[in-house]
């Protein structure tokens, strides 16, 4: 019999498969050196590679208003050699271990690390320690690195998504380093080697540092760590600088004449990771816009064809979080795309999702959790660093899936209602102002005249 004939009248239902296997998080070994540096080691996997990353609590947050990107300049200088090794030597030694030195300055942390062949684990740790604790920050390299940063700045500022991000974060975090995304060219040109050296001296120390090592482990890493970092000065813990995020309706247009699309960013502050609401927000976000099958993506991509890769997410900084919906939409549907996004927010605020829809999202997050904790040594490090840097207990990870499974339809609706308040949202549109003016008029007028705009009036 032809199987397609059997199928002709009834649809098959997908096979469910057996029950899931139990998932155990990779076990960690944690200790603190006498100088306060924290260490976490995670044996994982059979592939002979090991990831080692040091997160130092030093980044944009430690820059003064006139020092934007000084942390990046410092990171670039840290790759330029140590008191005993030239930059070329550092690069060659890392390569001989199958690794590469990566130094990256972010909002709250500068990371120094890489992934090397397991045979060289202890030696790689020693090399990273030399870079981190004995960086020479040579003045001779300053002009070249400044020119590189000026080029990066110029290129980034030609990208529409970067312009949107700059305006969005600038609006959300006024007067705080989180809101200062880009320096001016003259600011960058003004940094001296003394500025970078002072930044390094002031902000890099053992008490602000956490070393994570994950992968297939070989050799005596414990001794290597003690030998390499034991003599590093303790310093003080990172001071922190709490941010007051803006919670007021703001509509911002960045004009980009001739743009083929409008880049939309819509969002506002939500509860921080340590809040009991955070996991519920995570579930709400995945259902609303944070996954391929989410409501906003189903609507503006799969039903309307307005955009290719819309997404929402919860962005975090230390002890704070914000929700964000992003979409690059065709210019002529800028207004309709905004309407649909707010329609979906409003719909979720009014009605709890069905049990079936929510169960799908809970399962999705439970599955993603396994991937995030197994997919690579760096992914494992990312999960642990998130928990530790947000001051959460490690039980956040061991209880995550259970807590996701406990989220109820009314919780999701409640999160949308409590947090996704349209009258408190920042909306940024990067696009051709003249072409989209009519489409976005309802939003711009509401900002000027009536902040408590009712967003579902178009339905």
């Amino acid at each position, binding site marked *: 019999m032809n199987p397609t004939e059997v*199928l002709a009248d009834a*649809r098959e*239902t*997908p*096979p*469910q498969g057996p029950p899931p*296997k*139990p998932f155990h998080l990779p076990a960690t070994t944690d200790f603190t050196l006498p100088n306060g540096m924290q260490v976490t080691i995670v044996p994982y*996997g*059979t*592939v*002979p*590679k090991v990831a080692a990353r040091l997160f130092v609590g030093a980044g944009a947050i430690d820059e003064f208003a006139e020092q934007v990107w000084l942390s990046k300049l410092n990171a670039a200088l840290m*790759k330029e050699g140590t008191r005993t090794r030239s*930059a*070329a030597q*550092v*690069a*060659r030694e*890392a*390569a*001989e*271990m*199958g*690794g590469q030195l990566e130094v990256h300055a972010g909002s709250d942390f500068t990371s120094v690390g890489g992934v*090397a*062949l397991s045979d060289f684990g202890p030696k790689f740790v020693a090399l990273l320690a030399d870079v981190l604790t004995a960086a020479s920050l040579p003045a001779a390299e300053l002009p*070249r690195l400044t*020119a*590189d940063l000026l*080029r990066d700045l110029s*290129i980034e500022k*030609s*990208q*529409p998504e970067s312009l949107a991000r700059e305006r969005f974060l600038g609006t959300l975090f006024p007067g705080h380093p989180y809101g200062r995304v880009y320096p001016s060219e003259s600011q960058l040109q003004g940094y001296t080697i003394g500025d970078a050296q002072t930044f390094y001296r002031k902000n890099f120390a053992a008490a602000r540092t956490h070393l994570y090592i994950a992968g297939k482990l070989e050799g005596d890493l414990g001794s290597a760590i003690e030998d390499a970092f034991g003599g590093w000065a303790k310093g003080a813990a990172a001071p922190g600088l709490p941010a007051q995020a803006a919670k007021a309706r703001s509509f911002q247009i960045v004009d980009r004449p*001739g*743009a*083929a*699309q409008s880049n939309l960013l819509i969002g506002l502050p939500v509860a921080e990771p340590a809040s009991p609401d955070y996991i519920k927000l995570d579930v709400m976000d995945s259902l609303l816009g944070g*996954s391929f*099958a989410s409501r906003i993506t189903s609507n503006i991509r*799969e039903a*309307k*064809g307005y*955009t*290719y*890769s819309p997404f929402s997410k919860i962005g975090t900084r230390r002890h704070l979080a914000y929700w964000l919906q992003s979409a*690059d*939409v*065709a210019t002529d549907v800028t207004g309709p795309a905004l309407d649909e996004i707010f329609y979906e927010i409003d719909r979720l605020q009014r009605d709890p999702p069905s049990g079936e829809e929510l169960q*799908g999202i809970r*399962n*999705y*997050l439970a*599955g*993603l959790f396994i*991937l995030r904790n*197994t*997919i*690579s040594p760096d992914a494992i490090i990312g999960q642990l660093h998130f928990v530790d840097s947000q001051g959460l207990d490690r039980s956040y990870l061991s209880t995550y899936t259970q807590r996701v499974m406990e989220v109820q339809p009314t919780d999701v609706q409640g999160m949308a209602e409590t947090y996704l308040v349209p009258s408190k949202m920042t909306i940024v549109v990067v696009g051709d102002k003249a072409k989209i003016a009519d489409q976005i008029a309802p939003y711009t007028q509401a900002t000027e005249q009536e902040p408590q705009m009712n967003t579902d009036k178009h339905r």
Partner: protein
Amino acid sequence: MPITYYKLPNGLRVILSPDFTAPTVVTAVYYRIGFRVEPKDRTGFAHLFEHMMFQGSRNLGKMEFIRLVQQNGGVLNGSTRFDFTNYFELLPSNKLETALWAEADRMRGLAITDENLKNQQDVVINEVETSVHNQPYGGFPWLWMPQYANSNWYNSHNFYGELKDIEAATLDEVQAFFKTYYAPNNAALAIVGDFDPGEAQAMIAKYFSAIAPAELPPPPDLTEPRQEKEKTATRKDPLANRPALAFSYHMPPRNSPEYFAMGLLDQMLVQGDDSLLYQELVKKRGFTGEVGGAINELGNMFDYDGPMLWTAALFHDATAQPEQILSAIDEVVESLRSQPVDQSLVDRSVTKMRSSLYDTLTQFGGFGRADLMACYALFDDDPSKIDSLESEFRKVTPQLVERTAREYLRKANRTVLLIEPGAASPDADPDADPAAEMAAETAAEMEESN
């Protein structure tokens, strides 16, 4: 790691490779149809078609495939590449049968409408706008370089698609493309992760063995002629602030000794801060902050089957002339062509390559391993080739590196692509076909030299 390889009676190639590190499983279906081979008046069709594979099959309506994977705790994707189009799911390991059932459902046939097609034409046009037209350096160099460096249409057309071609596609064309290329005897199914091979074989037989094979069209001639003259192309980019420069050399034939030597030359020249061009162009000359490069910019040096380019690219300032940068590149490249390199440099490149190979194979929860096994099954009928790669690189000698550089890093084998910030001149057609433009440039050059 163990590999089981066999073919179903309908020709489907099956590769099974268990790995019990995590309770997850990758299910990947590869069809041997990439963007090189698409209808000549329908550029971008292979990629548009890939989108249609998510729009519905007999038992899974629109969005249901995506929802099925997601609500079972997994992620999925599809991509169109030079010589294949792939679809894969990464799921908790107890959901292997669910994935196999779903992939078999869409291998049997599509249940799609004009409305679905119109929707995905809009989505794909937005995709091209986002990544090319609305972006400074959009398509640089991955989309443009093959169009300038190659001369055979299959390798040199705009594979993302001219917007008018994407708009013109019809539902009949979609169904015809499916019938022609999406058959089990033109596909490979790779499974990597936590599963029992015996159980998997039974499930595969159950869901895939009744799917009928198709008669495949003869493959077109993809060969590129030996390039005998250096080519230079310039594109004006009104969205860009700084100039950029890329250069490509045609690769040696796949799996030849020279091909493996080029893998090491890529490591020597552009991979990592120890690489020769990083040291020269970044550290010594300060032309740029980084030099990126790859064999096959849309994958890796293993997952293609046809003419390929080794490409490197950098962004620079207007104060540095392309001629200066190229002469610095030439100095480095010529040093490799004129004498055998040190054994220590070869050794370091092998170490870097070995490390990078581990990364490739473990990429995305075992997807990287599935990718290579499926490609070696489709292209070479031998997925176990992945186990011999390391030893092939170890066979490379300094003499072979020199010989390879002498033939393949010839200036005449090179194409240079320059991006100049600023608006195109008013008489230039912004949608001009790069291949035609190149032909015109070459003709003009020849006239000058005559």
